[in-house]
């Protein structure tokens, strides 16, 4: 939690940044579930005008190790776009103000994030949310990646190797953080290297964690914000689609709906329509496998942080249980499809 001294320094910095004569901060509270950053909501009065803000502070450890500048740039990349994102206000890499780097963005009130494991999520609005969910995913892929603020931070990858760049990231995470041998993950990595996907039709911004739990809805059928851009990068838009469709995030839906929301064919059609890209079924098989492996990497890394005592948040402990088991089983099912015993 932010200390009173940290809140005072934060208020002073905000006042300076916003050019305010008087700025008062109140009602500071931490939101649960910030996997990569500590997330605080605060009410601010700026020269008499109330505003709701969010502060995202780097924690001691997290589910996902990312750079705040990257996430800040990702939010800025979608300002004035059809993709609903909060206004990114300022990025502070100086640890002297609240003890760690942070950034500030506008708070979107009246929204709720649903757990990806909540089978009752969205209620009667499930179809409406699903339609918007995949529409916005396509819109993310439609943005000119090369001209985006994100590209200024990350640069543009080589289209021919964007798959191997991402695979290298998660292979390293798994290799570095696993506390026990991972034969299924290693087999998946070998398969991914043996059967590379074709280059993307064009390079796109990839959210990197587009799923239930990282969007806000207004409880009345409207999706009002896409959040948690900490794993954003530029690459193949199929990566985001595969991640969104990974069974881990499908609200425990037993009917096989895309993200547990709408029919898979409808989801893909919306994504194609909004992105202007064609769905490549063969490439998608690769990205589906990669998505599950990436998930496995996240769970392994989170569990390692808990085991090492770097972070005692129970969400990290949970990561090493069901999600890890689920990802291993899914990889095994995919990798053994069509496997037959020789006589």
């Amino acid at each position, binding site marked *: 939690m932010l200390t009173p001294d940290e809140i005072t320094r934060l208020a002073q910095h905000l006042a300076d940044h916003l050019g305010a004569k008087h700025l008062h901060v109140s009602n500071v509270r931490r939101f649960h579930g910030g996997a990569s950053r500590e997330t605080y909501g605060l009410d601010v009065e700026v020269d008499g005008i109330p505003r709701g803000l969010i502060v995202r502070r780097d924690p001691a450890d997290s589910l996902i190790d990312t750079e705040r500048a990257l996430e800040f740039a990702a939010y800025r990349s979608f300002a004035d776009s059809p993709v609903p994102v909060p206004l990114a206000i300022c990025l502070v890499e100086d640890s002297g103000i609240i003890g760690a780097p942070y950034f500030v963005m506008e708070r979107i009130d009246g929204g709720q994030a649903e757990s990806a494991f909540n089978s*009752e999520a969205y209620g009667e609005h499930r179809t409406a949310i699903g339609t918007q969910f995949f529409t916005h995913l396509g819109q993310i892929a439609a943005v000119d990646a090369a001209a985006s603020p994100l590209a200024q931070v990350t640069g543009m990858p080589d289209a021919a190797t964007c798959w191997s760049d991402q695979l290298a990231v998660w292979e390293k995470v798994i290799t570095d953080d696993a506390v026990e*041998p*991972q*034969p299924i993950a290693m*087999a998946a990595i070998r398969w991914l290297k043996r059967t590379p996907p074709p280059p993307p039709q064009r390079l796109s911004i990839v959210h990197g964690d587009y799923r239930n739990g990282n969007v806000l809805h207004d409880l009345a059928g409207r999706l009002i914000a896409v959040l948690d851009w900490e794993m954003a990068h530029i690459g193949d838009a199929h990566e985001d689609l595969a991640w969104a469709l990974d069974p881990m995030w499908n609200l425990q839906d037993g009917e096989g709906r895309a993200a547990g929301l709408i029919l898979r064919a409808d989801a893909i059609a919306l994504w194609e329509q909004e992105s202007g890209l064609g769905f490549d079924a063969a490439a998608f098989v690769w990205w589906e496998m990669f998505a599950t492996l990436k998930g496995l990497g996240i769970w392994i890394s989170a569990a390692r942080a808990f085991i090492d005592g770097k972070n005692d*948040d*129970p969400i990290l402990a949970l990561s090493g249980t069901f999600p890890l088991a689920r990802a*291993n089983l899914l990889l*095994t099912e995919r990798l053994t499809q069509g496997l037959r015993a020789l006589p």
Partner: protein
Amino acid sequence: MKPTMDHLLISMATTIGTKIIPEMPETSYALGDAKMVAALAVLLAQEVDRAADVLVRENAAIRALFARAAEMPVGPLRAQLAQAAVTTDANLRVSVLEAANAELRALLIDLHALAEAREANWAVRLDYRIWMILKQGAQDRMLVLPSM
């Protein structure tokens, strides 16, 4: 007669879910922690009774596979496989079984990579047998997450 481990863990989760969580403010950060701890207790209840059984069976299956593989043209792995095939689990503590399992699975990774790299029938059969062990292990370790 005493309560079983899984019974105790489910009871803990139920107490957290039905008596503690309803008393917590919705804006409390600890509310999220409480939900996670309750879910963890439910998952542990599934794991606690079966953990040793899963490991004992998998360790035995891998050792049996190694014994057969050591007779195949596996080059430099042959001696390691033969040696690992005759190891035993010192006792049935989960920590001991897990340590043995980790050693076996590390060698299994090497054997799997070798099998994949060869096209001969023995290698294809070996690859299949490895996958059957991995698949069984993944199924045995699967958990059911409560809606949360």
